[in-house]
């Protein structure tokens, strides 16, 4: 009886494991979890490196969540928030950053397109976006024409909170796409830097010049008659 029970146990083990392997061999369990894998090898990288307790570091992270332009940029690149206490910082950033916090934009090959650290960082989200976009525009050779700018008034906003919230979870995952080079919005420039006169003045000048020319020509042509 005892031998019979042992034999049945062995048969059961053999039977179920055989089924498992048969299924694998026959492809029942063969499947691809994701059919369309993201071909995002051309994506650029933005690294935000800093001390998790540093208010400026937390502010910059917040900008990338709250400022529309930076948030859009964040979704177009591989976004890496790196704290100075992490192993990845010690292995790959400590030897090559000039200060903390650091904002670094790299293309897919690792070439640094923009980097600023500490006091050299712009103090507004718009300023940071502009600095990044200007450097990237030079690399991408995509001129930004002033007449294509969607102009709007820049309003002062409240200063960042002095008490940063220290995150205790991994950052939210980024969208899966096949993105490559990021597309930058036109950078807003202050009105005072515009070298062109107002449109109405240009129109008045044009109309008056044409009118004066026409009158002069008319007099030359018909006045003698």
């Amino acid at each position, binding site marked *: 009886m005892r031998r019979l029970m042992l034999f049945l146990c062995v048969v059961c*083990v053999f039977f179920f494991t055989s089924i*498992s392997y048969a299924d694998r061999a026959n492809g029942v*369990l063969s499947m*691809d979890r994701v059919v369309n894998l*993201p*071909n995002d090898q051309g994506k650029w990288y933005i690294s935000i490196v800093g001390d998790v307790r540093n208010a400026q570091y937390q502010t910059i992270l917040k900008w990338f969540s709250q400022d529309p332009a930076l948030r859009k940029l964040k979704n177009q690149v591989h976004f890496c928030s790196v704290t100075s206490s992490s192993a990845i910082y*010690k292995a790959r950033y400590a030897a090559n950053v000039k200060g903390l916090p650091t904002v670094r934009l790299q293309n897919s090959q690792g070439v640094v397109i923009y980097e600023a650290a500490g006091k050299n960082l712009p103090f507004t989200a718009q300023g940071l976006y502009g600095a990044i976009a200007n450097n990237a525009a030079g690399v991408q050779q995509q001129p930004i024409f002033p007449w294509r700018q969607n102009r709007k008034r820049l309003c002062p906003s409240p200063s960042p909170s002095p008490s940063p919230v220290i995150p205790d979870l991994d950052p939210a995952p980024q969208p899966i796409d096949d993105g490559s080079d990021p597309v930058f919005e036109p950078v807003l420039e202050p009105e005072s830097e515009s070298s062109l006169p107002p449109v109405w003045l240009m129109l008045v000048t044009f109309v008056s010049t044409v009118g004066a020319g026409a009158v002069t020509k008319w007099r030359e042509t018909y006045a003698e008659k």
Partner: protein
Amino acid sequence: MKRLSIALVLCFSLVGCEGDFSQSEPVQPSPLSSVNGERPIVNIPMVMRQSNWAGNQREGSCVHAVMISLFRWQNRLHRADEWRRTYANGEWPESLATKLDREGVRYAYTTKGNVSFLEWAVRTRRGCGITVKGGAHMVALVHLDDKWACLLDNNNVSKYKWVSRESLIAEWKASYGWAVTPIYTPAAPLPISQ
């Protein structure tokens, strides 16, 4: 009869073995594809590499060790720590998929031995876990180019193991062709100035 039953059970043990995965002499890589000269492309720092460990069922946890190393490389540090505390022992593709789904992890895998999956995983700098030793062990694939493949074995994380591309593919396909990886943000390349 008792010996026979033990032998049969051992024959069908799950993926998650212990033991050194080093059957041939290491070879030197040729200076082929790389990002910013960095080889392997998925160059996981030493302190982020998870070694294999024995679970409560006395099985190796190689699949989990690979996933934890890849989580760390893809900046999911808290997920990696949580995974280390929660899971252990050997895994089948479907049992791992169940756990990944339950934890809400974004991932991709194949059990078809599709080489393009490996190429994609390395091209996007994410790396992936691949089965070797007839399906009894999983290691991390951290580089794959026209000639060479590079493996990080969780039974000896102190060094990379370079093998020829053909050898790697043959080994993987003979080991059920299972590959799996999380899909998050890989670590940025080392910087070079313009």
